[in-house]
């Protein structure tokens, strides 16, 4: 066997990028097929049910649950404000009446004669879905959302935090190994997607947040710095909903690690263009990797990129990245795919491959420890 199957991250200078933008619950779609939209355009909107607030009305009135319904002053569907009297006891000869008051603004949803509980429904919450990228609406799913398509440069990161953001792409380093330090962040980077080569330091992240940078893209990040940014140690890589005021994306991994030359050069070539980024990462069944999308005027490739994992086959000559120690982060190409498993230094028997590194040396690594560098 001279082929192997291994997942990889996509780095493409030109592709057709397609993204599905869906509401969490059915609502109204605001665009039509063929429309051109900007990244911040509202595609669809809806309302989510309001919160529910229970009021133990019968016990507040001191009556059995079954006696509550005739004592209600407000009925199902009635609107109430905080503090409104919703039920009142008969009292003694009309005196010493006790009252049950509303604890929230909303409408009366139900009155239970079994438990004596009244449920109030708060006001609905509006939800909007934006286009995320500048492009054309190519499909509309009635009441659900739409698909936006655009020619684009597309880069998948390995890990990110923070959600969707967009802004002009700005370089903060000239070489892929240069770390992003606080000194490289300037006030002019406000609202921009800033990239550098090596590690993003804690100080650089703090400086970027204070300036109002939209997103940072680098080769690596230290675990300790991520912990500082999040305020806790990340246990499971399901991210995207953090409210940290910035989106962070790393393309290679944790530690001091240079961005792959190809990725860095592509970003340099796109400097100044509008980029849409999403730090959301999910490493479970249904892998989601962070992504950087830069819409282009036209596409010079027939490939299509969409949100989700990519995978491919390894052959001799395939460019790969080693993704585990002792050669973590090194880049090279497959020089040999031995058929038989070999015993590793750990003592495990595993299928391996030989890699010709960029400096010309050859190393042997388990096939599980490389990933394809996809174009």
């Amino acid at each position: 066997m001279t082929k192997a199957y291994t997942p990889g991250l996509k780095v493409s200078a030109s592709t057709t990028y397609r993204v599905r933008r869906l509401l969490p619950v059915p609502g109204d779609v605001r665009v039509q097929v063929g429309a051109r939209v900007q990244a911040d355009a509202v595609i669809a909107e809806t309302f989510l049910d309001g919160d529910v607030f229970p009021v133990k009305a019968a016990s507040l009135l001191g009556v059995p649950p079954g006696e509550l319904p005739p004592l209600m002053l407000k009925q199902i569907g009635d609107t109430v404000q905080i503090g409104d009297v919703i039920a009142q006891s008969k009292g003694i000869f009309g005196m010493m009446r006790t009252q049950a008051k509303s604890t929230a603004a909303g409408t009366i949803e139900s009155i239970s004669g079994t438990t004596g509980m009244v449920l109030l429904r708060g006001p609905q919450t509006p939800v909007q879905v934006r286009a995320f990228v500048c492009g054309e609406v190519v499909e509309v799913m009635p009441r659900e959302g739409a698909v936006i398509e655009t020619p684009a440069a597309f880069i998948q990161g390995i890990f990110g935090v923070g959600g969707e953001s967009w802004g002009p792409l700005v370089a903060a380093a000239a070489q892929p190994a240069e770390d992003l330090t606080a000194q490289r962040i300037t006030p002019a980077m406000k609202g921009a997607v800033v990239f550098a080569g090596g590690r993003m330091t804690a100080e650089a992240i703090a400086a970027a947040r204070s300036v109002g940078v939209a997103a940072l893209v680098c080769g690596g990040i230290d675990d300790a710095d991520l912990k500082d940014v999040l305020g806790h140690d990340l246990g499971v890589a399901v991210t995207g909903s953090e409210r940290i005021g910035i989106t962070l994306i790393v393309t290679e991994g944790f530690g001091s690690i240079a961005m792959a030359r190809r990725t860095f050069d592509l970003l340099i070539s796109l400097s100044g263009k509008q980029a849409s980024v999403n730090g959301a990462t999910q490493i479970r069944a249904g892998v989601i990797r962070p992504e950087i999308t830069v819409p282009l005027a036209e596409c010079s490739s027939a490939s299509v990129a969409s949100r989700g994992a990519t995978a491919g086959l390894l052959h001799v000559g395939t460019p790969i990245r080693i993704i585990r120690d002792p050669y973590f982060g090194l880049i090279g190409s497959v020089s040999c795919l031995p058929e038989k498993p070999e015993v590793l230094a750990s003592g495990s028997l595993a299928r391996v491959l030989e890699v010709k590194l960029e400096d010309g040396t050859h190393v042997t690594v388990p096939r599980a420890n490389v990933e394809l560098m996809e174009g």
Partner: protein
Amino acid sequence: MRIVATDCGSTTTKAILIEEIDGVFRQTFRAEAPTTVEEPLADVTIGVTNSVTELQELSGYTLIADDGTVIRRAAGSKGDGCDVYISTSSAGGGLQMMVAGVVREMTAESAKRAALGAGAIVMDTIASNDRRRPHEQIQRIRELRPDMVLISGGTDGGDGKKVVELAELIAPARPRPRFGGEYRLPLIFAGNKAVRGDIERIFSAEGFALSIVDNLRPTLEQENLGPARERIHDVFLEHVMAHAPGYDKLIEWTNAPIMPTPGAVGDILQTIARERKINVVGVDIGGATTDLFSVFGGVFNRTVSANLGMSYSVSNVCAEAGMEQVLRWVHLDMDERELRNRVKNKMIRPTTIPQTHEALVFEQAVAREALRLAYAQHRAFATKLKGVQQQRTVGDTFRQDEGAGSIVDPMLLDLLVASGGVLSHAPRFEQTFLLMIDSFEPTGFTEIAKDSIFMMPHLGVLASINPRAAMEVFERDCLVPLGWCAAPKGDVRIGKPALSFELRGASGMIAQGTLSGGQIRLVRLGVGERATLEVRPERGLDMGAGAGKPVSRTIEGGQVGVLIDARGRPLHFPADHAGRRTMVASWVQAAEVYEGA
């Protein structure tokens, strides 16, 4: 007879072939292929067809038809195909449930036990006394996206108000199912039968698919989980599986209902405990979760530690246990900052494997902590029924040992079964053996085995239609005996005499000796070799017959042998760094854990 069984996991679909050879069922071939539930293929049967096609190539039998289906041959035929095809599934995140009960320690706990026993992941347990305010509970219910909801509460004939109140909170919260769209959320009610009318009224208008089964806690003294568990399995097939990509086809292909993978593992362990009349603990440590199963005195319990695993959740293990706790098992020099980054890199690239000796040592140290945490959770959950009045003596009043009330008693444990990547794929049996002993700290005499290629799920389903075949394959091909651990309970003093032992085989003395506190000794005893082991503990140490009393037992060897463990229970480490490292290194050497160690 020829049986094909598949287990559709989140990443891999594993197929095995079982054949009746000379009147005995044996597992003969094994194959695997990537699972195809996710986009772009989004059809589980493609992965099944691929894995069975590989099985076909390995075995030489024609098992797959031109249309990709598994060929079934006519009864008595000797031709192509198989006689039976069965499958389990945990793809797409398995079965995710929300459970609710009135009292957290009673009906809510019984509901959780029923859901876990059926093979579900319990996302949250809502109870009237769970210390959350009602609006916080409603908010939580709204955030969850379960496949199914199980509600319990109240004993039959008891007060019904509280459970109706609970239902009145859940209904308007309108939990949204994971599959969205037109899917009506299945809801099972297994509570006080007197309020069934109220439950029907509350959930009729809210877009739920309600089913009602017998109360799972009809009286305080009785737990009746069977009907709820069966209904969960039915609903899993009818609703959840039917909405997962390709399962409608797979359901038609199989000869027995598709079971959630952990449910099937639980079934086979219960079968083995019943057949051998023993107490069993089984563990399956995966990338994301660790499942623990126990059968003690015929009572089955399962827990899922949702974020304790070796790849997706490895970072969480280190965060929860603390890096210091992980590194106490390491006898080599390691840089903590570097390790922290490595842990995160494993989390984001979960399929990588250790290439260096150092990486393997660290990974196995993490595994020890993951297993210890998961076992502690399991012991705390597997308790006698709470809420039942019990007579206590004055002596009981002063007993406050750890895990009091847990039915999982290490001294009564007969068999400990290991499965899951880090245990099954460890380069040496000795590594799995010591890893299990360090993590579970068995006391008395305990047999340790591992699942050779994780075929317990397949055998669990097989047991439902052919128990003999399942047992024969389990005994002969599934379990790999590693050996026995003999360890007294109690605190030892480092360097002071702790026990003496004698191991006698059919042809005389195999080994004898005296161990001091903190020492271990490995004696080789091969698979099938029988011997009598007598252990004489010092005062204050107990081998099961009381402190200081000798105990002997006939044991059978395994791939590793017998470990005499005088480290005491619970395990203690020297406080100073150098002393700890020297001691851990002595254990590693004594148990011959690493080649040339």
